[in-house]
């Protein structure tokens, strides 16, 4: 079965572990890795007029930077390892977007890492892992 594994990736150590976990599974099953990098963004945030003017420019820069700094190196590594890979850079809420993408591309699984937030931290700021466990449309693996 050649399923798609959606991996939430931000370059951190924990997301790196998630990627390794997913890569092993994908290689064994002949599946594909869909590497997703989400830039946190809300259309309801508040900006100054100057920031509005520069928003389009900044967005272009942020996406280019994410592509270059985070994705390019990983894609090369995965290609070397013989696992097919697709990349996506998106703006929005991490948990919501990962779920939506997994649904849209018929993924078999979502794999994310977790950064071991304290219980209070997670309660106050919310945790991606927590939200995804509740809302994911496909099975979800959280790699510690």
């Amino acid at each position, binding site marked *: 079965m050649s399923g798609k594994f959606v991996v939430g990736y931000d370059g951190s150590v924990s997301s790196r572990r998630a990627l390794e976990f997913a890569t092993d599974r994908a290689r064994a099953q002949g599946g594909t890795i869909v590497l997703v990098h989400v*830039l946190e*963004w809300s*259309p*309801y*945030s*508040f*900006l*100054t*007029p*100057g*920031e*509005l*003017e*520069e*928003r*389009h*420019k*900044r*967005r*272009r*820069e*942020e*996406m280019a930077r994410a592509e270059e700094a985070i994705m390019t190196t990983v894609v090369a590594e995965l290609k070397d390892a013989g696992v097919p890979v697709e990349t996506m850079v*998106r*703006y*929005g809420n991490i948990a919501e977007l990962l779920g939506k993408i997994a649904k849209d591309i018929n993924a078999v699984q979502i794999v994310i890492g977790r950064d071991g937030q304290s219980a209070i931290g997670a309660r106050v700021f919310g945790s991606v892992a927590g939200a995804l466990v509740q809302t994911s449309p496909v099975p979800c693996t959280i790699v510690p």
Partner: protein
Amino acid sequence: MNKGRISALMSAAGLALAGVPAQAQSIDETVNQIFASSTGWFVNLIFSNLPGTSFPWIVAWLVVGATVFTFYFGFIQFRAVGHAISLVKGDYSDPNDAGEVSHFQALATALSGTVGLGNIAGVAVAVSIGGPGATFWMILAGLMGMASKFTECTLGVKYRNEYADGRVSGGPMYYLTKGFAERGVPGGRIMAVLFSIFCILGALGGGNMFQANQAHQQIAGVLGDYPGWITGLVFAGVVFAVIVGGIKSIARVTEKVVPFMGLLYVGTALIIIAMNADQIGWAVGQIFAGAFTGLGIAGGMVGALIQGFKRAAFSNEAGVGSAAIAHSAVRTKEPITEGLVSLLEPFIDTVVICTMTALVIIITGQLVAGPDGNYLLNEAGTAIQTVGGTSGVGLTSAAFGSAIGWFPYILAVAVILFAFSTMISWSYYGLKAWTYLFGEGETTELVFKVIFCIFVVIGAAANLGPVIDFSDAAIFAMAVVNIIGLYILMPIVKRELDSYMRRLKSGEIKKFE
């Protein structure tokens, strides 16, 4: 360093400090004199009455404009409210455009530029001079102004500049030049230059000095009197840090706190109105009776009408052209969508927030009435007597304070934040006009930003009556140029609107899942 030198230095510093207020005083007087003598003609011209009446022509100009747009676009402000709300919610925004400027963000930014002292101080002035009836005319002007806002913001997006490096900016300067050229009407360039000059003056005056001045009055009212230049320097320092130093965190905090303050203000007003629920019928009666009879105020019905219209225009800036600058960076393929979103702005600003202020002042009984039910005038005969002899922000503060004792402190904080966010917005509007005239470039922009900060100090330092008159006149002068432009360009907006509405109806324009 020996002791003698230190003490000499300290006394020199002391002298310098002591000298500053005295100097500031004389500077204020000088500035007042120069301004009064050189700009008086301009102020008189803008605020002069229509021949044979006591009705300022500029107020008529704004009202006629709003009325023309209301009819020309078939009461767009009532037809399209539901669709405007869907647009703000993002129902029609492409999810792939996430990370770009949303309709909500453009609206919120424009609102934080207009919601300010006009809603708190301006309304108090309107009600104390024009009586409760001014509220009726203010609401009517707010509703009509929605059509002006719709027209200018559609044009702002349609003729905006999208630069190669990805920046997006627009405003009346651009639609006046590009739009006039498209219609083959000469003079677009001259109109744009005139608009830019008035916009810079308005930015330094109403968008800066007036705000700094009122913020200082408010702080001094809570902390006790102290020299205004101190407030001015602090404000100027913070504004400088944001617009020159690029310290976005300060602006970001303000942008987050301002909407919260707005909600708190409206929420508190609603609570006070609910506390006096039995008075609501009476207050509404006063508003309607006052609107058509004046209830004994100076100038009667016409006085109420002028005050209501004037303060609504000050507050929501519909027809002035400033909002077109703020709204133009939105991500949309259809300029009309931003026009529709922008028509919510006068509604929130004037019909909701200003009305709350007016109702609280009326309902808490701040205006003193005689035994015959007519209002009593103050000694000078210029305004209605108030319970504590207050006016402006002080009157609003007293009204809220009479119901909730500690609220004036919150109000003081709100006034400072509103003033600050209005200054940040206007510094941008002014800068755009400045770069239109003098070209873009770091040095040119820095010159304007430094001038802007200097005017913060001047504005806070003293009661600069003539300067403030002048800056109000400059803001209205923007409307003279802008509305002429809107008349000439409105067929273009009409074409856009008809095409958009047709496609919306046929289902060609759909909601995104």
